[in-house]
């Protein structure tokens, strides 16, 4: 039987003037009913990650999040005669990705691919899925180019980009009267991008960029950097480092006795727990926090902990959310076709990510709008490493009754006027 996409259905309904109902909302309601009647049978979602080396921690949380999402999606889909199948592939590289994706989609149609991969592999996958007419949801890669010059219509970004993380931290620092920043960033792309975004943000908001130290990969000595930092009278030090560089810097910063507030962008909590960054201090920005309680975040955190005996972190959240988005798209559009899912996600359906706000994808670069969280590292070092972080800010603040939710959330990230993204035509 031929399936009718939601868009087609709405177009048909509009042309027929369904029951004289003028509003899109009313038409959508009819589409919802339609969805119940025509729900497809099996939603197949491929989850691609690289569970090796530095990426292993990230991948393991990403997989757990996707598993919980799939189990919950299967319950919901089951109520409408549909099943959700999650296919996990955790050895994905740019080299083996095309063959792997073709193999996965050969026996039966893949509804969507969830990418829990690094930036280069995600970029390759994004281009490939566009060519193969598959939908891709990026849950881990943060680079601006994926949402900019390398953007594609069939890719949607659940993971916040570095601009959003930087702006959230920036908003918090300005709220707390810290306008003079010095930056210590990795020579890797993400470090350079954070510095670029920070400087631009300060220019726009009337703050002062006091300069930047670029840390080379493998650098372990920070005496010169710290000596310079001691003389710049910064009100905050923006830190964009990862792995061993981050560990060395934090240890030597603590030993130096410097007291300027460290503002980390972003925090990978799984790294904190597994590597036990003893010297971690300051404030850090993240996309999810296991201590969130409001808006049913407590319930989601409980479900995750009950399932895996681990607290949820950012990548767990983005992957849980990605599966939920796909399942909702299929149920509400009554189609598993890529074009229908793209149209559904582009129609800005209000997504409930347990963040208390309606989350929608930006039309100009397919980035999911969402609030982020600023966490403070407790100095008293509690026994349980999970207790080392406490929530001190949700950015941007919730919209006032006179404000539009979308406009408030768009204060994080690149505005359409600055975006280099040019999505392919439909």
């Amino acid at each position, binding site marked *: 039987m031929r399936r009718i996409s939601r868009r087609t259905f709405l177009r048909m309904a509009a042309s027929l003037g369904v029951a004289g*109902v003028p*509003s899109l*909302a*009313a038409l*959508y*309601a*009819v589409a*919802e*009913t339609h*969805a*119940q009647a025509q729900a497809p049978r099996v939603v197949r979602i491929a989850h691609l990650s690289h569970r090796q080396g530095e990426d292993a921690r990230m991948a393991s949380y990403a997989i757990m999040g996707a598993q919980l999402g799939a189990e*919950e999606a299967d*319950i*919901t889909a089951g*109520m*409408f005669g549909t099943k959700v199948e999650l296919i996990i592939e955790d050895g994905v590289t740019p080299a083996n990705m095309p063959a792997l994706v073709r193999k996965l989609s050969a026996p039966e149609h893949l509804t969507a691919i969830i990418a829990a991969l690094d930036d280069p592999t995600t970029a390759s996958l994004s281009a490939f899925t566009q060519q193969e007419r598959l939908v891709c949801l990026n849950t881990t890669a943060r680079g601006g180019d994926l949402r900019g010059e390398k953007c594609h219509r069939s890719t949607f970004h659940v993971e916040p980009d570095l601009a959003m993380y930087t702006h959230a931290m920036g908003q918090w620092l300005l709220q707390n009267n810290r306008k003079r920043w010095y930056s210590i960033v990795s020579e890797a792309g993400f470090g350079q991008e954070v510095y670029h975004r920070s400087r631009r943000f300060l220019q726009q908001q009337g703050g002062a960029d006091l300069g930047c130290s670029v840390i080379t990969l493998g650098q372990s000595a920070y005496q010169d950097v710290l000596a310079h930092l001691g003389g710049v009278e910064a009100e905050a030090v923006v830190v964009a480092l990862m792995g061993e560089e981050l560990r060395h810097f934090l240890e030597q910063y603590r030993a130096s006795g410097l007291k300027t507030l460290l503002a980390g962008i972003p925090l990978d909590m799984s790294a904190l727990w597994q590597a036990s960054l003893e010297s971690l201090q300051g404030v850090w920005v993240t996309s999810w926090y296991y201590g969130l309680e409001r808006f*049913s975040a407590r*319930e*989601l955190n*409980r479900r995750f902990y009950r399932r895996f005996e681990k607290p949820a972190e950012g990548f767990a959240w983005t992957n849980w959310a990605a599966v939920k988005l796909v399942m*909702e798209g299929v*149920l*509400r559009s009554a189609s598993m076709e890529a074009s229908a899912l793209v149209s559904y996600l582009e129609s800005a*359906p*209000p*997504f*409930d990510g*347990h963040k208390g*706000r*309606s989350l929608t994808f930006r039309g100009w670069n397919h980035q999911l709008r969402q609030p982020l969280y600023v966490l403070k590292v407790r100095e008293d070092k509690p026994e349980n490493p999970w207790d080392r972080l406490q929530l001190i800010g949700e950015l941007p603040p*919730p*919209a006032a*009754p006179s404000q*539009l*939710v979308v406009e408030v959330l768009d204060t994080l990230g690149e505005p359409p006027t600055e975006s280099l993204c040019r999505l392919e035509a439909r």
Partner: protein
Amino acid sequence: MAMNPQVFARKRLRVVPLLRSYVVPSIIMTLAFANIWVASAASQPKAYITNEKSNDISVIDTATYKVAATVPVGERPRGIRLSPDGKRLYVALGDEDRIAVVDTTSLQVIEKISSGSDPESFDISPDGTRLFVSNEDANTASVIDLQTRQIVASVPVGIEPEGVTVSPDGRLIYVTGETSHTISVIDADGLKVLATILVGSRPRESAFSPNSQKAFVTAEIGGTVSVIDVPGHKVIATLTIEGGDSKPKGVVATPDGKKVFVANGASHNVAVIDAQSHEVITTIPVGQRPWGIALTHDGKKAYVANGVSNDVSVIDTATQKVIASIPVGKMPWGIAVSR
């Protein structure tokens, strides 16, 4: 020392007239006044408000719009319902995993019933014999027999179930699934799910029309109200409130079936919906974060619990204006109004 019977008889003779003259009339008068007070108290509708943070309920005299009593009930009271005869008030205690039972005459907690974890919302069958409670963690709705206090059934429903509403005819129970965006329609006799309906994002509560033919479901994140054709188990309209930026939560239909009132949370207002045309007629500014909403039984007044401003707004449903604002406890959540 034993009293001489004759002395006793004389004294008794003196006492009896005294009783007859003064004490008995006094008692009769006192009882009469008490009866009048009780009758008056009983006849005057009361609004009962759960205060989530102060762990009590505020009892509002609907004649004076003043708090007549504050009753401590237990930890984290939220959902609240009156028994059909008005003699018992049931209050969900989220942090105690129990439902408190309050005697509406003495205003004392007389019992606490085990309910499963973190009870938030529930409803009572029209005959007052069963309680239907959502169990958020277990994705089930429990059915409690109010005679035996036992859970007699546990029905699988959507993910993160919350709002529970029994249809006025007692035949159906609607349970919202906040994470699955569903309404599970339970047959009240067979205690099985008859249908699952996909509604707006994060459905919180539902309200039936008095004839049980339509239901209105609020969706907090979707910013919508779904209108359901109850016999057909189908969404027939979806109203977007304030461009989707409101957060609809509490919902109630007027006894004449003409209007629906929706408490819009973060928008700090109440939307009035035409139940026939499914259009928003107006929005009424109230206190901060209106959450629970209930109507008087004549439908003339709506009481709205404002969670952030710690007060209750009283709306005249004819003029659609707020006519009173009553300070209550901390973080008022749910409301029940007696006959």
